[in-house]
């Protein structure tokens, strides 16, 4: 077996890989942004007074943390059209990933909410802030800052999960890599470069995150 490494074929398409990487990042950003809103609403609901809301959130979290993301994506992309909602590949994937990340973020935010000292809430109430004002002006900002590391890690996870978009032919990094693999037969090189790109991207994001955490340390 003589396999000599020739990276030429892979470098030729390197720009496609980079575009795919950027697309993956974009998908992750969009999904996590939506997921954060979902997670915040759900987290507050889960510590709120309504038993129905709490049960609903619990079901949502259970559902989307235990379903494989691929099944979710396929459901949204292939099955949803039958109900009349037509989403393209990108929207389907972002929607599925948003629901998926929302479930994880709900748990993170919920833990964050519980760890906000009661005294802060009481102080806010004492100066006359309503429950809503207290949540918006005091609890959420403190909680989000404390949850920053977990939020960041979830983002990195979702970025890696963006590779699953390849299954519905979204031209992100993994999809492009597989194309190059199939076209050029430069198997080892392709996957070395592809995984290298993911690893470097994740490392950069993690480093940026740590900087952010240092600037905004936990309370």
């Amino acid at each position, binding site marked *: 077996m003589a396999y000599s490494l020739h990276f030429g074929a892979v470098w030729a398409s390197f720009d496609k890989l980079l575009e795919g990487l950027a697309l993956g990042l974009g998908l992750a950003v969009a999904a996590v942004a939506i997921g954060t809103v979902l997670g915040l609403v759900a987290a507050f609901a889960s510590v709120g007074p309504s038993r129905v809301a709490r049960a609903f959130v619990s079901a949502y979290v259970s559902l989307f943390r235990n379903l494989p993301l691929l099944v979710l994506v396929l459901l949204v992309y292939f099955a949803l059209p039958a109900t009349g909602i037509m989403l393209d590949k990108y929207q389907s994937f972002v929607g599925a990933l948003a629901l998926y990340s929302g479930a994880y973020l709900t748990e993170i935010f919920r833990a964050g909410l519980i760890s906000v*000292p009661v*005294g*802060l809430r*009481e*102080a*806010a*109430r*004492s*100066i*006359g*802030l*309503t*429950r809503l*004002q207290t949540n918006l*002006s*005091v609890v959420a*900002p*403190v909680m989000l*800052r404390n949850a920053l590391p977990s939020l960041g890690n979830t983002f990195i996870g979702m970025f890696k999960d963006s590779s699953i978009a390849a299954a519905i032919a979204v031209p992100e990094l993994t999809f492009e890599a597989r194309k190059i693999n199939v076209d050029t037969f430069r198997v080892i090189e392709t996957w070395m470069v592809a995984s290298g790109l993911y690893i470097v991207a994740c490392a950069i994001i993690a480093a940026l995150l740590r900087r952010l955490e240092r600037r905004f340390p936990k*309370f």
Partner: protein
Amino acid sequence: MAAAPLLSIRGLTKQFDKLEVLKGVDLALAPREVVSIIGSSGSGKTTLLRCVNLLEEFQGGEIVLDGEAIGYRTVGGKRRRLGDRELSRQRAMTGMVFQSFNLFPHLSALGNVMLGLRKVRRLGRDEARAIAETWLDRVGLATRGDHYPSQLSGGQQQRVAIARALAMNPKLVLLDEVTSALDPELVQEVLNTVKSIADDGATLLIVTHEMRFARDVSSRVVFMEQGQIAEDGPPAEIFGAPRNPRLAEFLRNTRT
């Protein structure tokens, strides 16, 4: 009391599950009075305070602040707790300073004092800032407005907390063991601040362990024991000639 009382607590009872913590408390404060509440832990003094600013519910009796019954209303014979907005409005009429400061960590000292002014009193940013700066100056922290709680000493944080409570222009200020969590050398600066506020004419209800301070600053001292007020009188009487035997014992044990 010639003038109408600012605060009138009548027959206040409160239970935590099955445990009776307040067993019928009657207390009245006139405007500009400074009343200190002393007693051993578990006597219910902090709970009493927290009932006045509606952080706790109470099952029986009533609290009337400046003529308005707070916390509950009677609708068709049934006693109902007021809704969130009503409660919030009433809470803004009292100010509370906590043992553990409870400053908002994500806001500067100025931001802490301004929050209530902007969100509750709905003042504009410049007006709120001006008022906040005045109050920070009042507690001796004019130069620390942009500092965050983590950059302030305990004594400074507590003074910001006092400014935060006072900036809302409350009718009554509640102070819950405000020096108990402070390092000894920082206690005096806070006590001085409280004294100067009392001298300005604020109405204060203070729960404290600091007997000397209670004697110096109060117009009246109240001794609580097992959920009830056991003795109520001027400092000279309470500390000099206590009538209640348990008060005498308490004072012996907390010799200052």
